[in-house]
């Protein structure tokens, strides 16, 4: 079980290889990638900010919880921080298990919970030059002209 933050492009092939084992019959990999369109808003890039120590602690908690819920053999989470261009991988979650059902369940659990528990934030950079932090549940979206870092 390994979790990692990185400011370099994620090598998801390496992430996937690292969970493979002859004891596994199933491997599930989830990739979050930088999407160009959200409804009709066009993104040009994302910036991810993280609270590194707590993000690592929370991701470690998640893989431990997944291991208690399902008989998984290995799980790895790697999350990118910094500036990402369209199409780049922002997160890779890989899980191996003897049978496929628990690999799917654990993979979905890990990414679902990561999105609510792990202190990482994304800022959308829109095509009109504006940028905006994404903070789910905030009443109003506060658009700002802060240039992306």
């Amino acid at each position, binding site marked *: 079980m390994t979790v990692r933050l990185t400011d370099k492009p994620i090598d998801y092939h390496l992430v996937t290889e690292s969970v493979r084992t002859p004891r596994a019959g199933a491997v599930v990999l989830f990739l*979050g990638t930088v999407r160009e369109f959200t409804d009709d808003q066009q993104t040009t890039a994302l910036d*991810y*900010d*993280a*609270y590194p*120590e*707590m*993000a690592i*602690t*929370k991701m470690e908690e998640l893989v431990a919880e997944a291991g208690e819920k399902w008989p998984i053999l290995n799980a790895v989470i790697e*999350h990118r921080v910094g500036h990402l261009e369209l199409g780049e991988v*922002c*997160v890779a979650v890989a899980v191996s298990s003897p049978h496929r059902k628990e690999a799917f369940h654990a993979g979905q659990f890990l*990414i679902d919970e*990561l*999105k*609510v*528990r*792990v*202190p*990482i*934030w*994304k*800022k959308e950079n829109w095509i009109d030059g504006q940028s905006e*932090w*994404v*903070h*789910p*549940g*905030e*009443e109003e979206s*506060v658009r*700002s002209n*802060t240039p992306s870092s």
Partner: protein
Amino acid sequence: MTDPELTMNLTVKLFARARDLAGTSHADVTLSNQQTVEEMLSQLVIHYPQLASIRESLLVAVNNEYVPSETVIPANAEVACFPPVSGG
């Protein structure tokens, strides 16, 4: 002036929009001993009024754990304050 024995200077880490609004990643607040997260947030907003607009949605972590607003902040704790997360 409070008794210096009974106050602590706390540096609160800020992230994402909270950091941008406050203009700093490390916000200094002075708390009395035994004050809660709620009271810390009140001090924070007094020092950084730009945070008032997002105060209701701010999350607080003490030593890398989420804590509710009634939690008393222990001495020498690492405290962080940030809006809802959006990783992944």
